[in-house]
């Protein structure tokens, strides 16, 4: 049994790693346009392994605990901890495969090991599944791009890093792959590195993530100094140690949780570190779907959920999490209201939904017994959100693909009949995001509202959670509105195409600020022109099969996947995660479901009224509420604010440092270098190039030597 478990555990990150290596080594030379084959194959293998893990991990065929069990080393030298579940202090279920001892310095014993439990299995299934679909989509979307092998190598590397992050068995390994996914994100945002905006966006994402990572690594250091280990089994699942630390250093766990959440804020784009995510849309659309909507940005949620045993001891940190989540959700929803860039609307919606997840996680402040439900709600929303947000992004990509890389919603409309596949799949995703009843987003958003209502009903922070609940409801309304605003602006109204979509070749008018994907544009238009020759008129074409099928599959998921919640599959599954507190039975609350259904319908109704029935209303509102519109359209001017209060002083410091370096440090070095030059001024006169002059010098030296020898003789 253990061999089988180890095999699938190693297969999940191993297959993408092999694919990444193969593509990176041979992609340019041998694979070329077939570079997606190893990537898709590896992701399929990883997905299959993840599914096997998903079904095999919870029946508790292998269980793991901290040290009390019998430990044996199998033939491969890999340690596998096995324990009889009856003797375990707390039912800690999961599989561990130890790779090798990486570092053993003093008390820091660091092993690269793979550790899977229920929450990790769900994450893995979601990550590999979405990655597989996105990779298939990208094989059509990225076709003909000069960086085609590079793209798939980076995507494979990303999936490897993400799986290792999820499978990490200690905080340091988690941090390493936390950075690795950040690196992949950097590489893929800056995929079209010749575009200045893409390079700047990649740099921005990297730098802002560093701020969060600083918090994370500091938190990990604190964990190490406090617990003496970074292993999950010794930090999170050792109830005795947690209780001891909690009584001895009550403030320490608060601090650790706060710092860990700072890390999560950076990675998951929470206010005020959210500014990098919308800019990250400079990358190719599949990357936006995979990394910046479905998987990587949820790493922060995963980290906080994973650290629940710590967070339940730190209610203040949980309140902070909830507050930041609420602020993020509201602010980004407000920004999304007025954006005209389809991908940016989706990006802000991602930020907003991540805020929702953190709100749910923060609701555990109501009491220890509600933590499991809070985690479940957050993870459920993470899970459903991954599917419908990936779908929305891929559908946006499909729209871009057809519109000649134009993404400004003001320049096209009425695409419903031209792009039927894209239209229907986008609609499924939009309904799910808006929380339309029975769609995926409906169930998960409902769970979050239920978790927040727990906070109102119980615990000592009732007022706080009332405000948070209000913000959540308002944000849900705004979400429904802006989602359908984008939907109606794109697919309804009079049929209108930008001229880029109609040009048979080339992409002449590309001074538009929104031409994201112009590197592969010639191929798009070549395909479009081929289409035209058959039909005789210039109309944009819908997604080709490699792009259409992932869309269809994701659309089905977006509609149906939510039913794992009400079907009592998801909640009980995640309760098997080790370290989660005991569960209180939870029942679905009909009034809440009714509330969220009404909210979604109202938001959609307003959008329909304003953007289909009476398109003049938004314009009137825009002119009537000019300052508010500007505030929202300008993204609350966070970038400008950061430039003023952070970048400008730093730039002054940089200029000062540069001057210091140039004139003082360099001057110092130069003056040291000038000493030999000055000292050589006299002797270099001797260096006249004449051989006899050198001979004369030699003779004089011989003279000196003879004198010395004579003196020696005389002394003797």
């Amino acid at each position, binding site marked *: 049994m253990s061999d089988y478990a180890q095999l699938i555990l190693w297969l999940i990150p191993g297959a993408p790693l092999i694919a990444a290596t193969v593509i990176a080594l041979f992609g340019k030379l041998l694979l070329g346009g077939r570079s997606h084959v190893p990537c898709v194959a590896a992701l399929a293998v990883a997905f299959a392994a993840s599914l096997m893990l998903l079904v095999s991990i919870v029946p508790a065929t292998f269980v793991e605990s901290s040290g009390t069990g019998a430990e044996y080393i199998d033939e491969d030298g890999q340690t596998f901890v096995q324990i009889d579940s009856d003797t375990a202090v707390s039912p800690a279920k999961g599989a561990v495969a130890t790779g090798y001892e990486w570092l053993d310095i003093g008390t820091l014993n660091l092993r690269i090991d793979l550790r899977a439990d229920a929450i990790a299995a769900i994450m893995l299934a979601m990550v590999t599944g979405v990655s597989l679909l996105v990779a298939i989509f990208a094989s059509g979307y990225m076709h003909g791009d000069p960086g085609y092998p590079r793209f798939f190598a980076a995507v494979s590397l990303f999936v490897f890093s993400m799986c290792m992050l999820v499978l990490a068995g200690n905080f340091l390994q988690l941090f390493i792959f936390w950075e690795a996914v950040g690196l992949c994100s950097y590489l893929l945002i800056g995929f079209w590195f010749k575009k200045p905006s893409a390079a700047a966006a990649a740099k921005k994402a990297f730098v802002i993530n560093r701020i969060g990572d600083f918090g994370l690594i500091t938190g990990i250091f604190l964990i190490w100094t406090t617990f003496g280990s970074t292993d999950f089994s010794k930090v999170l699942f050792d109830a005795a140690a947690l209780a001891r630390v909690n009584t001895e250093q009550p403030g320490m766990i608060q601090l650790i949780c706060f710092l860990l959440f700072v890390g999560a804020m950076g990675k998951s784009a929470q206010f005020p570190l959210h500014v990098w995510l919308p800019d990250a849309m400079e990358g190719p659309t599949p990357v936006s779907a995979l990394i910046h909507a479905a998987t990587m940005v949820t790493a922060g949620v995963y980290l906080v959920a994973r650290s629940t045993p710590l967070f339940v001891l730190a209610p203040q940190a949980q309140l902070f999490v909830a507050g930041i989540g609420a602020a993020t959700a509201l602010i980004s929803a407000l920004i999304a209201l007025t954006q005209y860039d389809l991908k940016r609307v989706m990006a802000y919606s991602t930020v907003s939904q991540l805020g929702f997840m953190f709100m749910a996680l923060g609701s555990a402040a109501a009491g220890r017994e509600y933590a499991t439900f809070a985690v479940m709600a957050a993870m459920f929303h993470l899970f459903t959100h991954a599917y419908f947000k990936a779908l929305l992004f891929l559908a946006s990509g499909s729209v871009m693909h057809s519109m000649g890389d134009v993404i400004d919603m003001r320049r096209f409309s009425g695409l419903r009949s031209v792009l039927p596949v894209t239209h229907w799949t986008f609609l499924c995703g939009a309904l799910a995001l808006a929380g339309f009843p029975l769609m995926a987003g409906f169930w998960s958003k409902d769970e979050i509202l239920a978790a927040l209502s727990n906070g109102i009903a119980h615990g000592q922070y009732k007022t706080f959670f009332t405000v948070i609940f209000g913000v959540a409801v308002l944000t849900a309304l705004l979400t429904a509105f802006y989602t359908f605003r984008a939907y109606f602006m794109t697919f309804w109204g009079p049929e209108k195409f930008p001229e880029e979509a109609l040009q048979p070749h080339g992409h002449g008018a590309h001074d538009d600020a929104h031409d994201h994907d112009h590197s592969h544009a010639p191929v798009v238009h070549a395909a479009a022109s081929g289409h035209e020759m058959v039909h005789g008129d210039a109309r944009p074409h819908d997604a080709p099969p490699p792009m259409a099928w992932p869309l269809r599959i994701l659309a089905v998921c977006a509609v149906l996947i939510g039913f794992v919640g009400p079907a009592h599959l998801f909640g009980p599954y995640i309760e098997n995660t080790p370290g989660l507190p005991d569960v209180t039975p939870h029942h679905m609350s009909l009034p809440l479901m009714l509330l969220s259904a009404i909210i979604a319908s109202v938001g959609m109704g307003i959008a329909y009224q304003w953007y289909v029935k009476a398109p003049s209303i938004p314009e009137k509102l825009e002119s009537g509420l000019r300052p508010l519109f500007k505030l929202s359209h300008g993204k609350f001017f966070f970038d400008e604010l950061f430039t003023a209060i952070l970048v400008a002083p730093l730039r002054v410091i940089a200029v000062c440092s540069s001057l210091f370096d140039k004139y003082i440090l360099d001057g110092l070095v130069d003056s040291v270098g000038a000493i030999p030059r000055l000292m050589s001024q006299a002797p270099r006169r001797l260096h006249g190039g004449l051989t006899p002059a050198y001979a004369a010098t030699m003779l004089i030296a011989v*003279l000196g030597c003879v004198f010395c020898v004579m003196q020696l003789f005389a002394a003797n």
Partner: protein
Amino acid sequence: MPGKRAIRPLGGLAALGALALGFQLVAGEQNINGAIYVVVSTFCLIAAVLMITNRNPVYAALWFAVVTLCVCGLFLLQSAPFLAAASIIVYAGAIIVTFLFVIMLAQQSGSSGYDQSSRQPLFASIVAFTLLGTMLMTFQSWGEQHAHTQVSEAALPKTIGTATVVHAASRPTEKEQVGELRGLGRALFSDFLFSVEIAGTLLLIASIGAIALAPRRAQGTL
């Protein structure tokens, strides 16, 4: 001015005779060896001075030949007949002739400026004569140490540490003189056999090197 040209060697010879006479007077030795020694050494020094001062490089080379011959004479007087013969063959026979050949080919266009003026003669003379004085002082101090003891092999150290100072075969036997060909040959091919082989190899390498270094040129030119 043929007259002046005729007077010059005459004056030189007169000076030579005067010098010889002076040396004789100072030394007070009346044997023929001493007289020959004085004449040869004086002539050697005069030839050397002329060699380094003559403006015509051909004459200078010829004066160098004279110096070589005088040195060979001194070799003879120092009981080194084989060395004298070898030097004459090597220097006067080979080196001087080759150099003269080169000089004459190179001087086809007439006298050149660089032979007319010397470079910093005063400085060079001061350095060289200081060197000479130092050497003489060294010799003198050495002579003072050994003046009163008959210099013989017995007085010299046989070994320094473990290294042998005087090779056994280098010592002339009872019946021989120093510098006799028999003793020289015995020493060369017993004690110094490896050195002889190395010297031979060196000659071979040098000849190959000279051929490799010599510039490719058209027939009949340098």
